[in-house]
């Protein structure tokens, strides 16, 4: 089984795609370690997006797919940040997939 080793020796189980198997294992430290594996160094610009995502999941129970993710960031952080190019720079690959992984959320379905 894949897992994430934290500096304090704790081992967090991951699925084959690198998502947390148990969402309750998430902590900012876990996010940092997941990011380091990509590799991404989390900055305040990353964190504000991850916080928006976590709040959205908390309220609605959904990991947003790409287009709703961009719209969500635009709604909560402003239209200069709610753009694919901006989010792609922060979260390379598919931003909705990468960001939901770092935020400790389930994999969004129907994400291309």
């Amino acid at each position, binding site marked *: 089984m894949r897992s994430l080793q934290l500096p304090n020796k704790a081992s967090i189980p991951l699925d084959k795609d690198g998502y947390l198997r148990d969402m309750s294992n998430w902590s900012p430290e876990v996010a940092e370690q997941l990011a380091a594996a990509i590799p991404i160094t989390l900055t305040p610009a990353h964190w504000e997006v991850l916080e928006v995502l976590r709040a959205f999941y908390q*309220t609605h129970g959904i990991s*947003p*797919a*790409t287009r*709703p993710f961009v*719209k*969500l960031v635009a709604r909560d952080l402003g239209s200069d940040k709610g753009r694919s190019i901006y989010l792609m720079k922060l979260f390379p690959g598919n931003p909705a997939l990468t960001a939901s992984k770092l935020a400790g959320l389930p994999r969004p379905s*129907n*994400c291309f």
Partner: protein
Amino acid sequence: MSTNTAKTITFITRSTPYGHGQAKACLDMVLSAAVFEQKINFIFMDDGVWQLKKGQAPSHIDAKDLSAAFTALPLYEVNDLYVNANDLQERGLNCEELVVPVHSVQANTIAELIRESDVVFTL
């Protein structure tokens, strides 16, 4: 896959939120269709109107809150939710008791929506 011409896809959901899995299955279909940028109508009929009732706390039965997802639909550009007014009334519900603003409509309007649809799913 092609998205060059948007089709109108109508979803009619007629079952309760937690007693059966159909309500969740229908919502998942709606969210998927929305990702394809199609024109979507989401219609609640019969016992399906119970899905919209405020105050659901399904954590008591270890279920996810279906109604919480409805409030996220505008982000998916699903803005047209319809309920059959009679079905709401028969169950002693009114629009103020619903988690999201909906169009409360007569059967005639639903008939029109069906006629304007390319595809209709009922679940």
